[in-house]
């Protein structure tokens, strides 16, 4: 199987007034194509930081990160933007839609940045919006639909450029449990179509949708369900 993600000896620290603050400490991870991964762990354990690095929004302080075979650390700004545009679909906890634009325009926006013309943009955006069950809302604004629907729009936007990888940082964090289940069913379907899905969650029943569960603590991977035994158990205490 192909490796979509290969992370080795990844460190990330932030410069703060009180000196460097280490958030990720030697993270090593391989994620195969088509995998379905849930990242768990307490607040402040570095999950979002890790997701941002995976999503090429942030860069590690040291360590290697290969995405789809690209050595991300050595790519320039434009190449990173292209990876975010074509290879990765990002879904945020807070939906992050453009309030002034219609749902159709929101979903079509990544295609603007990949230089597609208007006809194709609209065609594809309608297709994915239909796929997430929002066919009747093309011209609505984000504030005219429910949170669950907004997250569907965000997922549609993540899907529109046919990415190999979907990254979702607490996608159900702002949703009730029933809506969360619906969103998770959507992720399940996407994974069945062969898209690699990595999501962050606090809840066990959400994480149970994934094939593989990874647990972060204090900037380290302390548990990985794909391994026979928990890694570095001695450090849990």
């Amino acid at each position, binding site marked *: 199987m192909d490796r979509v993600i290969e992370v080795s000896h990844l460190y990330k620290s932030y410069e703060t007034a009180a000196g460097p603050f280490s958030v990720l400490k030697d993270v090593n991870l391989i994620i195969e194509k088509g995998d379905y991964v849930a990242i768990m762990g307490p607040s402040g354990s570095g999950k979002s930081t890790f997701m941002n690095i995976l999503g090429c929004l942030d860069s590690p302080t040291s360590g290697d990160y290969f995405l789809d075979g690209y050595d991300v650390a050595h790519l320039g700004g434009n190449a990173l933007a292209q990876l975010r*545009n074509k290879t990765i679909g990002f879904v945020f906890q807070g939906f992050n839609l453009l309030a002034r634009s219609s749902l159709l325009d929101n979903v079509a926006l990544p295609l*603007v940045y990949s230089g597609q013309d208007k006809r194709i943009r609209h065609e594809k955006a309608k297709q994915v919006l239909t796929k997430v069950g929002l066919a009747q809302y093309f011209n609505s604004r984000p504030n005219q639909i429910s949170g669950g629907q907004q997250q569907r729009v965000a997922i549609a936007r993540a899907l529109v450029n046919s990415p190999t990888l979907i990254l979702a940082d607490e996608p159900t964090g702002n949703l009730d449990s029933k809506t969360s289940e619906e969103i998770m069913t959507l992720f399940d379907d996407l994974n069945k179509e062969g898209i690699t899905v990595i999501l962050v969650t606090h809840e066990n029943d959400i994480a149970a949708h994934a094939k593989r569960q990874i647990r972060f603590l204090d900037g380290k991977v302390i548990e990985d369900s794909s391994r026979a035994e928990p890694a570095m158990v001695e450090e849990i205490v």
Partner: protein
Amino acid sequence: MFAAMLGEAWHAMGANRLRTFLTMLGMMIGVGAVVLMMAIGEGAQQSIKRSISSMGSNLFIVLSGPPNAGAARSATGNAATLNVRDADAISELDVVSSVAPVSMGNAQIIYSGNNWNTSIIGTTPSYFQVRDWSISEGYIFSDSDIRSATRVALIGKTVVENLFGDEIDPVGKTIRIKQSPFVIVGVLDRKGQSLDGRDQDDTIIVPLTTAQRKLFGNQVPGSVRQILVQAESDKVMTQAEEGINNLLRQRHNVREGSDNDFSVRNLTAIANTAAETTRTMSLLLGAIASISLLVGGIGIMNIMLVSVTERTREIGIRMAIGARERDILLQFLLEALMISIVGCLIGVLIGIGGAMFVKTFFGTDAVVSTQSISLAFIVAASVGVFFGFYPARKAAKLNPIEALRYQ
């Protein structure tokens, strides 16, 4: 993709209409001022050009009296030290093509109960050659009219309008100038305004001798206060000026080292200086008006900076879904450019309206040229790019994570 971005810029402008309008206002006023000022400048230049070409070319005026008599000297103010024989002598000079002695004054004229006060020019037929002036009706009086001092007159269009109206053909009619009857033999072509703003059509031209003997009553027979001299070409102007000076000094027995009792002025040079001054003035007007464009530009920059801050999160979202730095840069640059271009468009209309207003209500010539409009657009676009660039760059250089986390 560019079309999509233009559309977005348009929407962004519409999102906060009042703010966009107020920002544009600076641009509108600036461009309007530039267009209007340039129109007024252009109008002034055109009217100067008309006046100069109506004056006649390669022209000198020889005035009686010492040169230091000052600017207040008028045609009637000084002792007449020149006479028609001086004029004849000047016309003998090689570099001189035509000479016209002039005796002038104001007089009341009457035609069947209508009164009009106008300027009377007494001169010889060569005057029309020197001034490059012709008649639209009738004929010009001849040298024999000069010799016998006949009471004939050529009449300017303004006088015709005021004395005769549209109905009556003035040629052949008799008018009274200072009570003496004069027969109108011709109507002068329209000449328009002179350099000093006088209406050159508000005049009557009569034979020099008639004016001297019957209208102004010269003390010294044959004396005149002005002689108009036309040089052969613009290349011999200095030569002609020297020639006239030497000749008249000799004729008037002016001794070495003492002052002239006449003065020679190069009218063409004075006219050119006036044209040059007007050109400089209109440039200056334009330059002062462009300062308001600068202020408009700063207004755009200010609003774009606010806009970038307000839309930090939006910028983060765009970056997260694949916008490159230059996409963000272009987006904000386009917005700034659109504000300045649309502002400029309205400003041009304001300028044109202002020019029409000035023309109707102040009678000042104001000519909006295509050059001034294209200049306004170029400047507006440059202002948009120049003042939009810094905010746009600021947006493009945002860190996506920090932008996404904003507020």
